[in-house]
C-alpha cells in the first residue's frame, strides 16, 4: 500500500506517495533525484549509501522509507554552505583523498557524523568508526589524512 511520506531533504520539504517499504536510498535516488547517496551493496555492509538522518549516521539502503517519515535527511548535496564547502569536503580535496570517488559521499558523511560526536578523535577512533565504509580503490590512507585534517580544522574554527 502506498503511503504519503514527508522528508526534509537538505532543508527542503519533500513529499512522496509511494510504498513505505522501499529503501530510503531508492526513494532519494529514483523519486527525488538526489543522487549523492550511492548503492554499493544494499545490505548495510559498505557505507556508500550513508546519509545523516536527524544528524545521525544512517545507512539509507537498509532504512525503509517509512522509518524516515518527518525526518531531516542530509546528503552530500546538502553539506556545503553555498560555494563554501564543509570542512570535511574541503579536507578531502586538500588531501586528494578521492580516486574514483564513488565511496566519497558516504565517507564524507560518516566523517561528518563522527566529528559531530567526537571532534577530537584519535586515529584508532577514526579507524573504528569508519570501518563500515569500504573504498575499493583502497584510498584509506589519504581518507584517514583527510578526516584528521578536518578534525584539526574544525577545532580551529571552534576555538576562534
Amino acid at each position, binding site marked *: 500500500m502506498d503511503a504519503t511520506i*514527508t522528508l*526534509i531533504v537538505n*532543508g*527542503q*520539504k*519533500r*513529499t*512522496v*506517495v*509511494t*510504498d513505505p*517499504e522501499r529503501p530510503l536510498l*531508492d526513494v532519494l535516488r*529514483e*523519486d*527525488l*533525484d538526489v*543522487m*549523492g547517496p*550511492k*548503492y*554499493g*551493496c*544494499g*545490505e548495510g*555492509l*559498505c557505507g*556508500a549509501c550513508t546519509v545523516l538522518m536527524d544528524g545521525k549516521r544512517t545507512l539509507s539502503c537498509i532504512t525503509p522509507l517509512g522509518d524516515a517519515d518527518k525526518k531531516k535527511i542530509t546528503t*552530500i*548535496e546538502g*553539506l556545503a554552505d553555498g560555494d563554501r*564547502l564543509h570542512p570535511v*569536503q574541503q579536507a*578531502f*580535496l586538500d588531501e*586528494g583523498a*578521492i*580516486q*574514483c*570517488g*564513488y*565511496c566519497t*559521499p558516504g565517507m*564524507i558523511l560518516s566523517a561528518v557524523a563522527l566529528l559531530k560526536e567526537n571532534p577530537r578523535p584519535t586515529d584508532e577512533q577514526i*579507524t*573504528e568508526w*569508519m*570501518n*563500515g*565504509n*569500504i*573504498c*575499493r*580503490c*583502497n*584510498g*584509506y*590512507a589519504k*581518507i*584517514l589524512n583527510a578526516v584528521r585534517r578536518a578534525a584539526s580544522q574544525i577545532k580551529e574554527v571552534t576555538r576562534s
Partner: protein
Amino acid sequence: MIEDTLAEEMVETARPDTVKLSRRTFVQLLGSGLLITVTEGVSLGQGRRGGGGGRSIPVAARIHINKDGTISVMTGKVEEGQGPRAQLSQAAAEELRVHVDLIRLIMSDTGLVPDDGITAGSRTTPSTVPAVRQGAATARELLTDLAARQWKVDPGTLIVREGSIRNEATGKTITYADLANSANVDDAFKQSVSSDIALTPVDEWKTMGTSVARPNSRDVVTGSHKYPSDIVRPNMLYGKILRPPSYGAKLESIDLSKAKAVKGVVVVRDDQFVGCAAPSSLAANRALEAIAKTASWKTVSQVSSRQVHSHLKKNARRGGRPGSRGSVKKGFADASKVLNETYEVAYVQHTPMEPRAAIAEWEDGKLTVWTGVDGPQRVQGDLARTFQVPSERVRVIVPDMGGGFGGKHTGEAAEEAARLAKAFGRPVAVHWTRAEEFTWAYARPAAVIECKGGLDDKGSLIAWDFTSINPGGSAIDTPYRIANTAILSASSDSPLRQGSYRCLGATANNFARESFMDELAAAAGADPLAFRLAHLDNPRIRAVLEAAAKHFDWPRRRRQATADVGIGLACGTEKNSVVAACAQVRIDRRRGRIKVEHVCEAFECGPIQNPANLLSQVQGCITMGLGPALREQLQFEDGKILNASFAGYLVPRFKDVPKLDIQLMNKTDTPSAGAGETPIIAIAPAVANAVFAATGIRVRSMPMEDALRKQL
C-alpha cells in the same frame, strides 16, 4: 508536524523529467564551434586509433580551441579513479603551453572522441599520454604557423607561453583564442597529428611531473558528479534481468503473467533472456521475483571451489613450449639441492564500489548508452553486432565511473539495458546488484603454479622450472640470473568466467616466484635479500629492492626476534615498471589472523608524471593486494557463488590498512610507464615470506589466512 521554516513544499509521486542531453548541452560542454567537432568526431572516431593503433588522426579529432580561451581535448580513455583525467590534461597543457585549468578533457564518448583503445594494461601512460602530447604539440605548431603567416614572419622567431604567441621583435602577442576567432583554425586542424614532433623534455616539464588534482574533484566531493548509475533519462524505467539459479542452467519454461498483471510493469522474454522493467527498482524486483518462482531450469553439474585446483591441474593444456634458457635437465642433474613446491591462488572478484550499470535509449533507430565500461569503442562494436545496426548508429558514453580494476572490460549491463529499452520503447536503466556483480561479472583467475628449483653446492640457483596453470603469463619470466630455465604458461578449463584484473597473472606468478625464492634462500642458508641480490642483474629492480630494504631497516629488523612477528620481502617487474616491498606481520594464533602491520614499498616507473596520483595508486595497490593475499576468495558449489556479499567476501577495510611507507623513485632517463597495476604484485609474497619468518610455516596458498589456519 514538520517545522522547518526553510522548507519548500514539493509533492512528487514520480521522477521529475530531467533535462535532455541535447545538442545544445554538448555545445555548452565543449564551447562554441563544437558542431564541427561533433560531426567530424563521429566520422573520424570509426576505426581510427589515436592511442596506440598507429594510424594518425587529424588534430581536430584530438584538440579543439574554444573561443572562450579554454581548450577541449578528446580522448577515448575512461576515468575510473586511476587518474587519466588529470594526467592527460597535464599532457595536453604541457605541449600547448597553457595552464592546465584551461584544458577541458572530453573522455570516452564514442560520438566525440577518437579511439584510444581500451583503458587497460597500464597503456594510458606509455600510449595515450604520448598521443595526446603529439596532438597538442602539433596544434601548437599549427597555431604558431597561423600567427607567423598573419604577421609575415618566420614561425621559428615566435615564442609560445601561457596560450599566447609572442613576436619578441615587435612585442606583438596573439592568444590561441584570438586565432580561433580570426584565422581558419578549423582548416589547419584538418592536418594529421605529427608522430615525430618533438615533445617537451622531462627536465623542462612545467605541468607534467606536478601533482595536479583530478579536474572534477570538486564535483565528486559535492555529489554533483554523475556516475553511470546516476544518469536518468525522461520516461525511464528500471530494469531487472532474470538470472539462472546456477552457472550453465538453461531456462525451460516460465510464466510471465504474474509480472504482466502488475500495473506499470513490462516484461519480455527472448529465449533465455527474460527481463522486466518498472518505474521503481523495487517494483521491478518484485515482478522479477514473482515470475522467477515459476521458472523451471535444466541445470548442469559444476566444479566447486573445493576441487578447483585439482580440476585446473587435471585440465591443464601443457602442450605449449616453455620459454627456456640452457638445459633444465642438466641444471637439475648438476644441482646439489632440488626443491619442488606447488602454489595455489583462489578466484577473486574486482568488486568495484559501483557495480555494472547502464542506461539505454533508442531514438529513430539510434542507440545511446551511458555505461561504466573500460572500452567504449569495443562496447559500441559489440552493441552494433548484437542489434545489427551500423556502429555509427550506436553511441556509448562513459561518465567517470566508480572503479574497475580490470573488471569492467565488458558491456553486459549495456546490452541488457539496450534489449529492454528496445523491447519496451522507453529508456531503461539496468543497475547490477552487488550479488549480481559477485556472481555474473568475470573473476580474476584461480591458479596452480608448480615450481622446481635447483641450487649448486655454493647456494647458487642454477635450475628453474616454473609452470603456471591458468592465471595468464604476465610476470611469468624470472628476473633472476639462472643458467637453466623452463617457464610455461598453461591454460586450463576454468569453471568460472574469468578475465582481467589489476596486473592479472602477475599477482599469481609473482606470489609463487617470490615465495619460492624465499624457500630457496632458506635452503641455501642465505638471507632473502642477499640471496635475491646475488642473482639479480636488472639495475632497476636492484635499486627498488635496495631502497625498500634500506628504508625498512631490513638487516636490523631481520636480527630482531619477537614471537609471532616476522618480516618478509619481495620484488618484481611488469609492464616496464619495478617494485619491491618489505612487510611486517603479527600472527594471532588463537584467531588464525595475520595482521600486516607495516609495509615499505619502493616503486619506479620512469619519470613521474603526477606524484600525488602515483602515491594514491601505490597505496591503493598495496591495500587492495592485501585482500586476495589474506582473505578474499570466491567460494562456489554446484554453480552457485556461496559468498556473493561483503558479509562473506572480505575486502580490506580501514582496520586492515598497515603503516605505509612509500618510496617513489623518479627515474628520468627512461620513458614513463603505467603505474596503476604493478605496485600490487609484491605485497602478497612479501606477506607470505613474513608469515614464514613469524611462524616457520610456509603458506603456499592465497588467501593465506585460511591456509595458515589449517597449518597452525
